[in-house]
């Protein structure tokens, strides 16, 4: 039962870590470190929850989770499994099945949506002589995005071409190519898949928001290696304010509303007044913590307790 208790404690630690990490600002100074930490928390949480339930079930073997599971699968049942063990076994298996099915369901849903989108693009979008590898959709609203996949497509609307200066457009395209190259969609997918299981969970929603913001910042940073910071910032500001809408008249202040958590505002602020990148040693600690967190459930499963 010690393994079960430790795994249950680990899953609680993961929930606490997710709650603390969601509003934290420091990961924005090193988005890739933040993303890796989020992935480790998510993975450790899932494994620890499933592992804790299964560890309760195989506790009578007294030789740890991994040993117990192997013995159980072999049909090696030492003592009668009481109702508690049966419930724990069913619960752990069900939770594992649920997590895997949610992931598969998300993959299928996203895959179908992308296929439909690519079909329509093939019929409606045109190439652009000045922008090799980019598709243009003739519509006045401003849009720029990529359809991720093995053969990703980067798409801009005619409205975006009108909205942005040529160099700004290059910065936006560099951002989108970074999404496509680093498969940020696959980073996000396990988190969004949790919505199938916990549609109302505030922690899940905050985690998704935090990871998507970090992924955008990562793509911003990649774009900065190709284009000057000011161009990406003005492109982002133009995009964010592109909705033609009557604005309430009043005094014009320059300061951002300090409370605004809108991703566009947060990203723009970060580009205009950048804070220094995370120091090397903090990055190392973050990656180390992430690695340890991801390895811990497996280590606990092997522990003969």
């Amino acid at each position, binding site marked *: 039962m010690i393994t079960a208790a430790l795994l249950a404690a680990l899953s609680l630690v993961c929930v606490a870590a997710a709650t603390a990490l969601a509003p934290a600002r420091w990961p924005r100074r090193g988005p890739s470190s933040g993303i890796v930490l989020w992935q480790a928390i998510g993975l450790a949480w899932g494994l620890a929850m499933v592992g804790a339930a299964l560890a309760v079930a195989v506790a009578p073997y007294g030789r740890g989770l991994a040993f117990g599971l192997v013995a159980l699968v072999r049909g090696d049942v030492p003592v009668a499994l009481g109702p508690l063990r049966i419930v724990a076994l069913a619960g752990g298996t069900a939770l594992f099945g649920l997590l895997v099915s949610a992931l598969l369901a*998300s993959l299928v*849903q*996203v895959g179908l*949506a*992308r296929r439909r*989108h690519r*079909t*329509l693009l*093939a*019929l*409606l*979008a045109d190439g652009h002589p000045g922008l090799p590898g980019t598709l243009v959709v*003739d*519509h006045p609203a*401003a*849009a*720029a*995005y*990529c*359809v*991720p996949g093995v053969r990703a497509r980067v*798409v801009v*609307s005619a409205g975006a071409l009108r909205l942005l200066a040529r160099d700004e457009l290059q910065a*936006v395209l560099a*951002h*989108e190519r970074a999404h496509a190259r680093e498969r*940020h*969609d696959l980073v*996000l*997918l396990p988190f*969004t898949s949790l919505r199938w299981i916990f549609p109302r969970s505030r922690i899940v929603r905050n985690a*998704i928001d935090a990871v*998507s913001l970090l992924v955008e910042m990562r*793509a911003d940073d990649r774009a900065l290696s190709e284009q000057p910071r*000011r161009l990406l910032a*003005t492109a*982002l*500001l*133009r*995009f*964010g*304010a*592109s*909705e033609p*809408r009557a*604005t*309430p008249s009043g005094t*014009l*202040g*320059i*300061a*951002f*509303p300090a409370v*605004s958590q*809108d*991703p*566009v*505002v947060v990203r*723009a602020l970060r580009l*205009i007044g950048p804070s220094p990148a995370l120091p090397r040693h903090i990055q190392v600690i973050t990656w180390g913590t992430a690695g340890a967190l991801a390895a811990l459930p497996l280590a606990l499963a092997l522990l003969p307790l």
Partner: protein
Amino acid sequence: MDGVNRLGYLERTVMNVLWERGEPLTARDVGRALAGDRDLAHTTVMTVLDRLAKKGLLARQRDGRAWRYRPAASRETYVAELMLNALDQTRDRDAALARFARSVTGEEARVLRSALDEIERGRGRGG
């Protein structure tokens, strides 16, 4: 052009013919409409129409011994569908597309505009 690209190009051309004509056409009609710029085998036209129907982009109905095809929706409807996906103004974010930025409204949009003015004025002063 490889096979896949050629089929994609033909699908697009056939859809454009059907959108322009605005009436249900048979495979023979479509072939005739395309005859001007390319000579296509009748079976190729049939294949393309069949693929488009399977994708749900064409609706078809019997007319004697032939099928008549028409677009399932107008070109504008499909452009609107693309853009609704692309702009994703719903809060329910999905991972299907990776968008550059979502536009904001009201106070936040006003603040973004003034920040933009600020940057551009600063740049003007700096030369």
